[in-house]
C-alpha cells in the first residue's frame, strides 16, 4: 500500500528537491512579507492594505540562533513513546530579502555542534513523522557549507 505525502500544514511550502520553497504572502501595497502566510489583511499598521499574493521565500538564509530539544515535546508533537527519544536541532534563520526570521527543524544528523550564528543554511523538504497511511512532510534547514 502506498502512503500519501501530506504537508503538516497546507500552503506553507511547495515543491521538491532544489525547487522546494517556503510560501508566504506579500502585500501589494507596502511589500511586507508574511510567514506563516497572512491571507486576510496586511498587518503593517502604516499600510492602507493591499492584496496579499502568495510568494516563495528565499531558499537561503543565515543562522539567527539555534538550540535543541533534549526531551520529548508534548502532544500535538507526534512521537512514538515506545522508542527512545532522539533529540533534534531547531534553527532560527534570518532571510535577508524578506527581513524576517523563520524557525525550523534542522535536517536529521545536524547537531548544535555543527552550527554557528551567521552560518548559511538552506531550506529543504523533510519528513516530520509517518503513520500507516501518511508521510507528513515539513521544511528543514540544512547548512550549505559553501555548497
Amino acid at each position, binding site marked *: 500500500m502506498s502512503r500519501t505525502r501530506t504537508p503538516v500544514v497546507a500552503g506553507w511550502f511547495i515543491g521538491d528537491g532544489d525547487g522546494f520553497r517556503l510560501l508566504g504572502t506579500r502585500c501589494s501595497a507596502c511589500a511586507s512579507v508574511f510567514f506563516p502566510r497572512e491571507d486576510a489583511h496586511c498587518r503593517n499598521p502604516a499600510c492602507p492594505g493591499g492584496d496579499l499574493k502568495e510568494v516563495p521565500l528565499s531558499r537561503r538564509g543565515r543562522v539567527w540562533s539555534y538550540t535543541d530539544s*533534549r526531551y520529548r515535546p508534548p502532544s500535538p508533537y507526534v512521537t512514538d513513546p515506545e522508542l527512545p527519544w532522539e533529540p533534534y536541532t531547531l534553527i532560527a534563520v534570518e532571510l535577508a530579502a524578506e527581513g524576517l526570521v523563520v524557525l525550523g527543524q534542522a535536517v536529521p544528523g545536524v547537531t548544535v555542534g555543527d552550527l554557528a*550564528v551567521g552560518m548559511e543554511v538552506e531550506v529543504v523538504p523533510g519528513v516530520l513523522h509517518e503513520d500507516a497511511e501518511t508521510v507528513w512532510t515539513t521544511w528543514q534547514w540544512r547548512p550549505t557549507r559553501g555548497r
Partner: protein
Amino acid sequence: MTEDVAVLGVGLHPWGKRGRSFVEYGAAAARAALADAELDWRDIRSIVGADTVRGGYPGYVAGATFAKALGWQGARVTSVYAACASGAQAIGAARAQILAGLAETVLVVGADAAPKGFFRPAGGDRPDDPDWLRFRVLGATNPTYFGLYARRRMALHGDTPEDFAQVKVKNSAMGALNPHARYRKRVTAQEVAASAVVADPLRLLDICATSDGGAALVLSSMEFARRHCVAEPVRIRAVSTVTPRYPNTVLDLPDIATDSAVAAEPAAEPFRASIATAAYEEAGIGPEDLSLAEVYDLSTALELQWYEDLGLCAEGEGAKLLREGATSPGGRIPVNASGGLASFGEAVPAQAIAQVCELTWQLRGFAGERQIADARVGVSANQGLFGHGSAVIAVR
C-alpha cells in the same frame, strides 16, 4: 502623570506542587491580603481575577471563581487573561477602576495549579492557533525559545554558560531566605553545570519550573488609604501593558517567524525595552531612580536580557553588571531579591502579582533577611506569549 493608587494589603500562598485546586491557593492569598490590609472582604467593592487556562471554565472566569470562594457579596467582578502578564493586567484593570472613581477598594487575585512537565497547548486540532502549531510542526517547547535567546546572547555579547549559572547562584541564595519560595536551597555553579541540558545551551537549573501558587493585592484610592489611617502606603505609580510595535523583529513565543522588516523600519526599542520605557514615562522616573527590580527570569539568560531592557546597563553588558555584583544584595540595583522565578517556578497568573507583593514588602521595609536597605522605588517586569508584557513601578 496619573495619580497613585495605594497598596493596602499583600498576600501569597506558598509556591510548590501540592496537587490542590488553584481556587484554594487564590482564596488563601486573598485572605492573607485582606488581613494584611485590615479590611473585611464584605467591604471590598471590586474583585479582579487573573485567569488561568488550566482550571477549565472556573479558570476563565477567575474573578467570579474567587468571589464565590470568598463568599458572594455583590462586588463588581472582572476577569482578565494576558498569558504571563495576566496578573499585571489584573492590577492595571483594578487601578483603572480606582482612578476612574468606580471603586475605592479592589481585590486582585491570581493563582495556578501547574501540570508536571512542559506547558502544552489546549487540546484539539487547532491549525489556526500559533501555540498549537509550534508544538505540532516543530515540537518547540518554551525552553527551546529560551535556548535560542541564550545562544544568541553568547554569539552577540560573549555571555558564557558560567555567566548564566551565576544568575541561578544569586537568585537561589535569595530564595533560600524566602518562606514563600518553592526552592529554598542555595545552588552552586557546579550544580548548574552538572544538571542535564534541556535546550542547548541551557540546563535544567537554568530554566524556571512550573509551579502552583497564589498571589493577591488589596488596592485602594489614596483618599481611602488616608481615611483608613494608612499615612504612607506603598503606592503603584505606573502599570505598563503595551503591545509590540510592527515589525516585531524578535522571535517571540509562540511564533514560528518574526514580522518582516522590509517595508517598515523596526522601532528603535525592541518590545521588552518599550514595556519598561512606557512604565518609566508614566511614573516620571528613570532606571537611575530604582532601588530594586523584580524581573521575569524564565531562564537565567533572560534575566541578563532584562538588565539591558530595563536600562540598568547598556545593551550587551548584562553579564558584566552581574559579574560586578551590581544586581546582588548590597549592589547598586539588586534584582530578584525574592529569589525570582528561579526559586519560585512560574505560577502564570499569580507571578506578576507576586512580583508586586515582593516590591511592597521591600518598600515597607518588611522583607526580613531579604531586605534591600532603604528601598524607595521598585520595578517589576515580565513578558508572556502573544505580545504580552508588563512593568509595574511601586514607590513609597
